[in-house]
């Protein structure tokens, strides 16, 4: 099977974005997007697990029979997540304490098993790793945007406490956007995650409509929608 890297990139970042279109892994997306540093921390951790698990699954795809592939995939994903968890504990201890249960929960993030099943199990190592990386990037970017919007609306600041992830150099990155901001609690609390997420999906669909309206001549490229259960975009 030949792999079109451009299409993989467009799929992961936009057309089939795990956060905005596939709506996979919503629990950590909602739970850790209350500040930029939390969102970035979990985004990077998820990206790493996703790229590594796709690589590992692709490597062993001929060795496992269909009957036991799911338990094997889950074992690989769980082991990788545990490794990331240990590494975060060792190098970014405070961030690990803040993200808490969401790190081990990466194991249960449906994007990861989803990509292992739908892509990595059928493709070679290089393209599977790339798919994992780009899907992870798509997820991390959505997480980051929601985190930044919520932090800005909620506290009037951006990039607070970045030193938890990036070391003491980032300690003075905190940027007070609005002086004397009273804070908008709703944005920090769980409802804020749903509202920002909804607005982001609406924005994406709006941009898609706008692009479509401007290019009526281009025939839509059909995508494989067989394994997608919940979608917000149009399934062609």
């Amino acid at each position, binding site marked *: 099977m030949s792999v079109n890297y451009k299409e993989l990139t467009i799929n992961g970042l936009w057309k089939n974005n795990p956060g905005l279109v596939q709506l996979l892994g919503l629990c950590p997306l909602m739970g850790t997007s209350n500040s930029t540093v939390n969102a970035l921390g979990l985004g990077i951790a998820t990206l790493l697990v996703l790229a590594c698990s796709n690589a590992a699954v692709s490597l*062993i795809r001929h*060795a*496992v*029979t269909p*009957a*036991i592939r799911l*338990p*094997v995939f889950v*074992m*690989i994903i*769980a*082991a990788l997540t*545990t*490794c990331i968890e*240990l*590494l975060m*504990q*060792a*190098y970014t*201890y*405070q961030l690990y*304490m803040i993200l808490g249960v969401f790190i081990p929960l990466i194991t249960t993030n449906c994007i990861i098993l989803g990509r292992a099943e739908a892509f990595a199990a059928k493709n070679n190592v290089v393209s599977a790793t790339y798919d994992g990386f780009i899907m992870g990037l798509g997820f991390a970017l959505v997480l980051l945007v929601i985190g930044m919007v919520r932090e800005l609306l909620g506290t009037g600041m951006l990039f607070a406490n970045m030193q938890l992830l990036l070391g003491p150099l980032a300690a003075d990155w905190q940027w007070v956007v609005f002086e004397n901001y009273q*804070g908008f*609690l709703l944005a*920090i*609390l769980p409802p804020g995650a749903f509202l920002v997420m909804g607005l982001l999906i609406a924005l994406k669909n709006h941009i898609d409509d706008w692009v479509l309206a401007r290019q009526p001549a281009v025939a839509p490229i059909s995508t494989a929608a067989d394994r997608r259960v919940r979608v917000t975009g149009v399934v062609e």
Partner: protein
Amino acid sequence: MTVESMPASIRKNAIVLGLFAAITVAIVALIQQGTANRIDTAREQAQLQALAEILPAGSYNNNLLDNSLQLDDPMLGNRNPEPAYLALLDGQPSAIILQATAPDGYSGSIRLLIGILTDGSLAGVRVLEHKETPGLGDKIETTKSGWIYSFNGKSLSNTTNEHWAVKKDRGEFDQFAGATITPRVVVKAVHKALQYFDANQEQLFAAAYAQNLPENQP
């Protein structure tokens, strides 16, 4: 059914699955071995940093984590025995950091670190863990407001028992708009910890001295 009579596919699957379990466990064990030391150091660093924030710089020169004892007293409100850290300056006790719990927070327990100097005044108080309402009760955190600093320098002698309360209860401490319960229970827990310290000061520092003995006077 014996192993031999199993269909070959089951046997093969079982072996492959077992092999993968062994490999993944081995990888995790390897990473754990490699990071164990760093994780311990990171945890200790984080603890030390939290403790060092409470005590004035230069008021001690021992490693606080080396001089600790487990305390279990109902006055501290902890569910389990928690460590207390003894600060020593040149081998002489200078302060103690107690862990206390306010069990009656607005939503669950509030765990506190309370630093008390030898003269019975508070060096500082910090919140270790809480589940208070974000935006209302969470002003007890230093990142949200400076309220917790209002304990600095307070003692049983400069603040009478009636004044260990929030202003609404005719005390000395501010409450927060929209959240009275949180500061009220924190004040109560700190007050009780001070009373505990007052009653047990000698035993606590005697323990510090006994612990420190082998190092200073071999």
